[in-house]
């Protein structure tokens, strides 16, 4: 189980660190976000090293929010009603400044409202 989770984290990292995003399929990135959601649901099963890696990759995704937002437009995912805790599904709100993510503090700030993650 733990090895599988490590692999998911690794795959998530491969996509968020991908310099050549335009060569990937937006549908595949969509799947990567599903992976991230799965990791969120199983966060308690991660060891400290995994959590650190996830935090690192999250920070990269957050810093590339605009890029990923643009790239996923054809998939039509923005404007969904998923929980804000799954902030990667809400990059549209992040680039509008409505939603901020502090990965190290494990919290998000949505229009002034602080929500704890994990």
């Amino acid at each position, binding site marked *: 189980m733990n090895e599988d989770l490590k692999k*998911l984290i690794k795959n998530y990292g491969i996509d968020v660190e991908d310099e050549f995003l335009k*060569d990937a*399929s937006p549908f595949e990135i969509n799947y990567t976000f599903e992976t991230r959601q799965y990791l969120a649901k199983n966060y308690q099963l991660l060891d400290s090293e995994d959590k650190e890696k996830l935090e690192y990759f999250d920070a990269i995704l957050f810093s590339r929010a605009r890029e990923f937002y643009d790239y996923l437009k054809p998939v039509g*995912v923005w404007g969904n009603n998923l929980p804000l805790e799954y902030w990667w599904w809400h990059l549209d709100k992040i680039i509008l400044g409505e939603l901020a993510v502090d990965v190290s503090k494990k919290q998000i700030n949505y229009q002034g409202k602080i929500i704890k993650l994990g």
Partner: protein
Amino acid sequence: MGILDDIATAVGNGFIQNSANNDAMYSEAFGFEPQPQLQAMSQAITTDLENKVEKARQQREIAAKQEAEKKRQQEEWNNSVLGKAEHWDNLEKATPWGNVTSYEIQQKAAEKIGEDAINSTVNYFKGAKAGYLAYADARNNFDKVAEYDTATGRYAPKEGYTQNDVDFAEEQVKKAGSAFRNETLYPGAMVLGVLGAPFTGGGSLALSGAAGLFSLGENVNSSMEEAGKRGETPLEIAREGVRTATYGPLVDTLTDPDLMKKLGDKPLSTFVDIAFSGMQAVAPLAMARAGVRSIKIPKEVLNKTPEEILAAASAYDNPPAETSQPAPKLPVGADVEDYEGVKPVGKEGANEFVGNSKNLGIESEFSVGDNEGVVDKPAAGREPGGMVDEPGRAEFETIKDGIMRNGPKWKSDTTLDGHVAKRIKKEHIPDNWTTKDYNNKIKEVLSKKNLEVYEYVRNEKTGQPFDQKYYIYGDGKWIVMVGENGVMETAFPPDAINGGYSGYLQGLKVSRIK
């Protein structure tokens, strides 16, 4: 992490390594036991640094490869007829078509026609290239398994192969060659010949008759062979074949000054565009699939790019049973007056063209030339979809057939490289796999007996429809996603822990259609 964290980490690491070095040096000098924990930490830092350096090197390598590919594509484009045709735009501005007088201008105008035609159909050549490559592959494979036996005058199996291998390889060569000629070259010659008839007096083109068309076969083959001997690329060879079958005779004909003046009143590029749109949409059905008796062309088809039309048209493989419908009609003289201001061309006087398709290895007869084309009037805007409607053949089947026959079609070579690199990184495929191996894997999935097919039309979270429909083919482990335009989207095995194959499809809320 911020830069201060990075600096702090680097300083800390440096301190540890320095301490470890000192520890090793003093322990050796004074006979102490080195501190294992310190040495281990130092080793871990070194390994980590080495990994980072290696990763950076790999990234640089990929970037360099992609940059080189971009450069190559740019050079290919610069050297293409499109790039070279630029000066003709200036000439056209300086010398209106109606005032062509000097011989020099006529000559250049004749060249312009050839270039313009090629210019308009550069994407068509890509299809021709694919056809040629399939043929070349079959030939190479044949050469691998067979050798000519001078004693018997027949091809015999090489060591390690059987006569069955030889027969099979030979059959593949015939099929690929036939498909290339019948579906790519001859239809082009036929439609251009028919549409060109009003401008050339009907008989001056060597293309406007079955006999003339058939006689081109040898010329086409020999011109391509010559191009091959000159060491030209597959694309150039294919272009040479098309040129011989179509533009060559046309250009020769149009050196006639009177004819040039006639053409001066007609927008040639439009003429060629329409000819090739019609050719790509209909000819493969009318000719190569002569068993098809009913052809309906959705209005979207003629608004598609030549490449898209070619992909749609070439996806046809198994013609349905013959029906009692009227004979197929090409869109000669189709009502084009509403084509965004384009003048009608090829409508009046298009000679009736009746060909015996047996000459081309096809069993039934076909006729073209009737002005009552079966083309729906195209809309001004471009709409997604719009495959040629072949009764009884589902779109997902024709797409699959196209991939099985011509290989997966990717957005670009760079895209394919990127996909392969990612599959390797994610350990979906062995690290020594090439793009060819990956494409073969896709074909292997599509050829599975237990193949499942799903339609994916809207986002599962928002309900927003996509710009086009996608088909997802799956074998229980891998999924292969292809747009209805026939272009590959992605192919990978969903992660087992995250629901795997079935979990992935359930998550997308897709409908199974097979």
